[in-house]
């Protein structure tokens, strides 16, 4: 399954999960801010992806994936502002962000609001690759560069 097909399935899941208009759900639309997804909407989207792609992503894994295993105290400083190390990680999973604009101002709890439809596609591809590896079957989805 290629990225294009996965993007289509993710877009459908987001449109159906949010009851959104298809033209609102663009790759660069952020789920929380632009599309106003609530936690139950995210859950709905993840279950739709599970049914469509047999890929299981827990809601809690979304934030874990974004934080990339960096402990909280290294991800944000005492005031919860994202550290350099944190920014470098965010840039890996959300390549669209501009670190210069966010440096010194981005709070940890605002991080998920930057997460876009395209970032979700990356996460799904990542999950599918991990699942395929764990199942020992030949890779069916490419890992994002």
């Amino acid at each position: 399954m290629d990225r294009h097909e996965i993007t289509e399935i993710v877009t459908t899941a987001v449109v159906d999960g949010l009851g959104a208009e298809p033209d609102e759900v663009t790759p660069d639309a952020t789920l929380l801010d632009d599309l106003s997804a609530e936690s139950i909407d995210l859950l709905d989207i993840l279950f739709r992806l599970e049914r469509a792609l047999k890929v299981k992503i827990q809601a809690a894994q979304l934030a874990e994936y974004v934080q990339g295993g960096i402990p909280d105290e290294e991800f944000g400083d005492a005031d919860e502002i994202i550290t350099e190390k944190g920014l470098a990680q965010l840039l890996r999973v959300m390549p669209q962000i501009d670190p210069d604009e966010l440096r010194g101002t981005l709070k940890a709890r605002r991080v998920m609001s930057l997460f876009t439809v395209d970032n979700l596609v990356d996460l799904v591809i990542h999950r599918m690759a991990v699942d395929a590896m764990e199942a020992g079957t030949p890779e069916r989805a490419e890992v994002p560069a």
Partner: protein
Amino acid sequence: MTISGQVALVTGGSRGIGAAVCRRLARDGVAVAVNYRSSEGAAKSVVRDIEEHGGRAITVAGDVADAGEVGAMTEQVIRELGGLDILVNNAGVSQDALLYDMAMDAWLDVMRVNFGGVFHCTRAVLPHLMAKGAGAIVNVSSVMGERGWIGESNYAASKGAVNAFTRCAALEAARFGVRVNAVLPGFVPTDLVSALVEGDGGKSIRKQIPARRLGTTEEIADAVRFLAGPESSYMTGSLLTVDGGAAAVLGAGRP
């Protein structure tokens, strides 16, 4: 879509209303897991009865007040019956007393089973139903959750909690194709209410019910069967009263 071929877990399926629900669902081709806490013999005889009528059933032991046991029980049903589509939260107890005399922990003992059981089982089963995008949960609550009765403050509160939970769970589950409803029985002669409905008490209660009689376990089971099946596909968050009109009465209902 039909109900035949689906799998149901019925808590407290060994006796009373629960046993009638097990038989009723099995009659329509549902494979039934008959849960019990202590009445193993009774649960086994429900299973035997279902099998003799050509149905499929198993017994599953477990205290619904215990979250760990509920988790294990849910896995057992899915493993042994190959899935789970319907949950009937029926297990219930009462510990009637005047509030003035009631033991301090009498609220918690009843709450643990009546509401805790509904909570634990719903929490354990819901992810399976959500992953499939289909399913029905039916809570056997009580008209007591909506009305008052002397000596049942703890029981009524536990059923009021079930009713509130039914509405909220319905909201959260709806978009995943899962429906959550409740049946609110009136008076049905079972072990639970034997002290209340036998002898003169029963006579006096019957007089207060517009239908002039107690309900049968089968009548409650029919309502549960309706809410569990595709006939009620647009119903969720509903509290369905099955009480011969008892809760409709204002005061004595006459001068």
